[in-house]
């Protein structure tokens, strides 16, 4: 359960760090009246959708780290046979990374344009279609489309991997290493599909008349989600490669015993 506890420690210490900025030492019974009205009423300065997403990521993170922990505990048992990871996975990883990078650059461009509009005094709250605003708009939309395509390609790649593994006689119900492989990649794929729904929605908005700052926020959320899922994907590969049999761990074990 070490992995999940480490992740949990990160989540909890972030929350407690935030709480510690909420004047937890205040003596509310001594402070009343207008003077103190806004004293320390820090709301989180992020938009609520972003906080929501961060909460979701914490939950998703727990889900995967719990599976990682289970993986480690299960692989201690003798019947475990590590499974060779199909090469296709590396291609898939690059696809997902590229999608993630496209989203990041779409975000950068859209943000830059939003500030430019603000400087021009046109205000971000005005309905401005990204597309109608010169090449910036076009590039945002096309980057989003690229990200969609790459992600779909990633999903197809993952399905091909599953298909090939099945062809080679590596089934879900075979050795636990392959059971974990299917469960982990499957769950990851489901999360990608969920994200794709939001990404499609955002991409569609990028073409129609809409308020620029809204779409910037949406791209921001998508980018964050994609980075996170790419990170999870890397961690997943790392866990499944079985690198935990490292000499380092062996050494630790010997030191302890």
């Amino acid at each position, binding site marked *: *359960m070490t992995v*999940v*506890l480490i992740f*949990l420690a990160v*989540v*909890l210490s972030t*929350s*407690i760090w935030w*709480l510690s900025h*909420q*004047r*937890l*030492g*205040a*003596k*509310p*019974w*001594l*402070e*009343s*009246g*207008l*003077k*103190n*009205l*806004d*004293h*320390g*009423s*820090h*709301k*989180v300065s992020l938009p*609520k959708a972003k*906080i*929501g997403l961060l*909460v*979701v990521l*914490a*939950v998703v993170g*727990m*889900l995967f780290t*719990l*599976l990682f922990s*289970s993986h480690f*505990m*299960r692989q201690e*048992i*003798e*019947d*475990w046979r590590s499974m060779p990871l199909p090469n296709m996975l590396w291609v898939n990883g690059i696809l997902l990374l590229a999608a993630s990078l496209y989203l990041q650059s779409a975000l950068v461009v859209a943000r830059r344009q939003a500030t430019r509009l603000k400087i021009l005094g046109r205000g971000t709250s005005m309905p401005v279609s990204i597309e109608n605003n010169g090449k910036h708009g076009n590039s945002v939309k096309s980057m989003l489309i690229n990200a969609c395509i790459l992600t779909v390609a990633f999903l197809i790649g993952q399905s091909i991997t599953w298909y090939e593994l099945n062809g080679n006689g590596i089934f*879900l*119900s075979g050795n*636990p290493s392959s*059971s974990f492989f299917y*469960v982990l990649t499957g*769950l990851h794929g489901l999360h990608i599909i969920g994200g794709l729904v939001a990404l499609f929605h955002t991409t569609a908005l990028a073409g129609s008349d809409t308020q620029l700052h809204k779409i910037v926020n949406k791209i921001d959320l998508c980018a964050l989600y994609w980075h996170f899922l790419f990170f999870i994907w890397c961690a997943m590969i790392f866990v499944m490669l079985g690198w935990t049999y490292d000499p380092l761990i062996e050494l630790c074990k010997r030191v302890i015993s």
Partner: protein
Amino acid sequence: MVETENTSPPSVPPAEVEEVELYHATSFWTKYVFSQDAKIIAIQYSGVAIAIGFVALVLSSLIRLQLGFPEMFDFITPETYYQFVTMHGMIMVVYLLTALFLGGFGNYLIPLMIGARDMSFPYVNMLSFWIYFLAVLVLVGSFFVPGGPTGAGWTLYPPQAILSGTPGGKGLGIILMLVSLALFIVGFTMGGLNYVVTVLQGRTRGMTMMRLPLTVWGIFTATVLALLAFPALLVATVMMLFDRLLETSFFMPSLVEFGDQLSYGGGSPILFQHLFWFFGHPEVYIVALPAFGIVSDLISTHARKNIFGYRMMVWAIVGIGALSFIVWAHHMYVSGMHPYFGFFFATTTLIIAVPTALKVYNWILTLWNGNIHLNTPMLFSLGFIVTFLNGGLTGLFLGNVIVDIPLSDTMFVVAHFHMVMGVAPILVVFGAIYHWFPKISGRMLHEGLGKIHFWVTFVGSYLIFFPMHYIGLVGVPRRYPELGDAAFIPDSVATLNSFISLAAFTVGVAQILFLYNVFWSLRKGRPSGSNPWRATTLEWQTPHTPPAHGNFGPELPLVYRWPYDYSVPGAAEDFLAQNDPGSLDSGSST
């Protein structure tokens, strides 16, 4: 229900809180069925939770029928007995208490108490309820499939949970149970997201974290715990479903069943226990923390005294929440773990008792010299404090490895956890309903009936669970439909068991009184006005009772003070509401 207008709208300067676009329902369906208003969702959640809770209550009577009068009833076989016990435990813990405290009270109270118009994501909030409802339907459905519901015990330990020796193990029972749990978790996560973001983002001007009523602190922290703990149960249910349906071996060791070698091999049942209790222990606090918060507000209001040590109460809630993640293995002392682990977990378990005890002291010091009104909410709160203390003390016994090992899986454990997480939170649920019913309906619940309900429930619970400690100490194991002639069991156990059962039936029947009270008062209860308890928190200051859509009038309230300004010298009434500016120039009061 009666509609009342708040006669003295508080004169406050306009709030500079950005208004959110409020969703407006247009038809009956979107207003009352697929509603996005947190107050309606709260009532839907509570209604379903209480209804399914009554099923669990009936099941407990059936359990007691068997334990008190073994071999008298033909329709209770060992199989059905296991099914009753399992469904009773699972429903009570997950589908009643978790759903009611977070989905019910959380939805109703969070927006009102922090001065928000609604939850942050109303649509997701609505989905949350409907997925929960679906989960309950699937659960109920499992009673009607061939083979019946699962009888694996609420802990669902593999390998027995999915083998043919366990009722429902090879049929649909266990599958529906697991699917229902998975649905519940998905639905809860949607709701939990709302509760957390709303507390972080939706607070009105002046409502700092340190001015939140403890109820909100309790529900908020419990939600964070639940969001982080439920994934463990989800992972466990998904892996168990795979083991059951697709013959993977996550949890299943190699087995021979009725002479047949099963295709499983190498899986680890202990892994399941870790996952289950990684959820299971925080679950205790998911139920307890909202109860702590609510009780703090109830005793402060009904003893007309500010809560003693507000800061410490907040720290204790947060501290208990964090600690509750590193004690889970105290449920696994008998699983053959390394003694050092046992030592570690016993230590953390005893450490958690410190902030918990602190809360009990603070409640008592709040009551000390207070102007205690012994009305129904107060009685239930006092009942809670005593009962929780009681269960907490036996918890200290069980936290120690050496004491736990002989007591593990005896009725002593059953008595212990019923005290802490059964009776105690249920008393708070009732106290809270008596307290907030006037706000929800505009009418008071009948006080006399309420007191009878309290005394029968409270005394009855002790008659049920006190003797059970003794039965457990003698060594009577739990989850046994019949005891037979075991030499170590004295005759007194059978007598006590019959006695306990009679007490249990009485308590069960007394709950009908409560239902009657609710339905009677909805139509005939005394109109309550907007703030019958003269309470300080924002939900009592709404312009309408019951609160209208959007909760507050055109302006959101401004918060000038903490929620516990009771018995203020010189105040017009004896309290100052949170949105009462009081004397504007002075920087302090009380």
